[in-house]
């Protein structure tokens, strides 16, 4: 069976973009970093051995009891756009476009699970979940990881735990990321204060933007910046706890905005609406920020006509690689700005003040 995928086929082999209704807690990713004891780490490994690892993992996943519909794709069979698409689809936090000859991907059409082979570690395993059920996602990820570990012993030491190429990921070799959308906190200028008040050990924040505090689309990513000297249970518990507190804070500010209308916020929301409905060109970051304000506007009942789910879907498909997948990979950057504006304008036509 050929592992080569065309553009549309790639999207058909991925789980469908989940139609999530989530208002504030958008999604979470749980990721393991793992290496196998018998091999040097990928950067020091010959191509032959890296390909051997891909073949072994392919055989293991095809017989897996925990991955329903697995497919192993070699990175050499994907072009740079398709790799970018995979990174976007799974909210992968590292560049995949450099993956080429000795790297591969494990995907499952029925589960938002991604395995990346030989990027910097032999195996990264990630599950994306959309229902605030971190424990269930964890159990699923551990089941997949343990099943592979039965056949291929992981590099592990009692002192350093799971040994990773980046020593700052050793120990649990586990990073959880929670994506929260907090437009009320951000646009009332309260976000930093609330983050500082609720800060806790081992948890940091980042954003989808280039700077860690850009908070593009009002999306704040909570993640553990420590992986050793802490248990997995502590990590999940702290993440979950902080996320709940941030959600409570966001809801409190939204309530106060409903009870005491804020002209500045209303102005921002309506400007965003105008930009999305009437722009001829719009960048990804502009679209994200505007859609974040639209969600706030809907929550405050300043505007109506679309559901949370529809806005979430637009946030997903208006990103660069997803738009390329829709309109063609040869669309130029300038044309993409136009296509994005056109798509958003048409899909948000029903939105009104």
């Amino acid at each position: 069976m050929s592992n080569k995928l065309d553009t549309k086929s790639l999207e058909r082999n991925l789980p469908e973009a989940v139609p999530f209704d989530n208002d504030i807690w958008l999604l979470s990713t749980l990721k393991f970093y793992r290496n196998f004891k018998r091999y040097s780490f990928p950067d020091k490994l010959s191509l032959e051995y890296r390909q051997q690892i891909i073949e072994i993992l392919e055989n293991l996943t095809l017989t897996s009891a925990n991955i329903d519909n697995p497919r192993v794709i070699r990175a050499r069979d994907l072009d740079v756009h398709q790799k970018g698409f995979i990174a976007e689809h799974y909210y992968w936090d590292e560049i995949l476009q450099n993956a080429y000859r000795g790297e591969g991907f494990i995907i499952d059409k029925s589960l938002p699970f991604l395995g990346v082979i030989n990027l910097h570690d032999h195996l990264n395993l990630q599950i994306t979940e959309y229902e605030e059920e971190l424990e269930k996602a964890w159990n699923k990820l551990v089941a997949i990881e343990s099943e592979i570990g039965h056949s291929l012993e992981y590099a592990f030491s009692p002192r350093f735990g799971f040994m990773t190429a980046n020593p700052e990921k050793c120990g649990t070799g586990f990073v959880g990321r929670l994506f929260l959308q907090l437009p009320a906190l951000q646009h009332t200028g309260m976000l930093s204060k609330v983050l500082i008040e609720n800060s806790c050990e081992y948890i940091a924040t980042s954003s989808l933007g280039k700077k860690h505090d850009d908070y593009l689309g009002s999306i704040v990513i909570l993640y553990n910046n420590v992986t050793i000297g802490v248990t997995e249970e502590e990590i999940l518990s702290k993440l979950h706890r902080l996320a709940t507190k941030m959600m409570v804070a966001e809801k409190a500010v939204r309530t106060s905005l409903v009870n005491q209308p804020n002209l500045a916020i209303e102005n921002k929301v309506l400007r965003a609406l105008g930009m999305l409905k009437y722009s001829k060109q719009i960048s990804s970051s502009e679209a994200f920020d505007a859609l974040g304000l639209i969600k706030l506007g809907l929550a405050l009942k300043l505007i109506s006509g679309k559901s949370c789910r529809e806005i979430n879907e637009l946030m997903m498909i208006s990103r660069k690689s997803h738009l390329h997948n829709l309109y063609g990979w040869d669309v130029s950057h300038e044309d993409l700005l136009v296509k994005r504006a056109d798509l958003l304008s048409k899909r948000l036509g029903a939105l009104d003040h």
Partner: protein
Amino acid sequence: MFEAEKPLDCTNCHKAVEVYYTVIEGSRLVRSKMCAACPLLQKKLRCEEHIGLRYEGGNTELSCPNCGTVAEDIVTRKGLGCSKCYQIFDDKIIELISTSGSCLLEHVGRKPEERLLFSPALRLVQLNEILEETLDNENFEQAAWIRDQIIKLKASLINDGD
């Protein structure tokens, strides 16, 4: 300060001494001196198993004998090359990890093949704690929302139990 000695095999070598080689044997330091081209030095560098030494033009630096990673690779965050690097560079790794904010520089989490599964009931405990804090702060509307989450979670736990 103890004196370095030439290896016996090098008694008749008249080349300039350029390398001082020190080995810690238990509580003893054994110091040798030799020329840069000394075959005994090359043998020592190749045969070291528990630590790696790479010799380049009179300078030696710590390197992994398995994959060739050097200490500089850790400092410059280039990454480690294999599991053995963790043994060779343990001090440097501890130094690096300690800057990341971890208080305890030792693994306390799960081991391979340990099926550590979490019950959603843990979430229930957490929500109840946050509910109490929210009530203490008199955020009653937010407390109502948390109470709804608790009810939803309890219902989900009952369904899963079925």
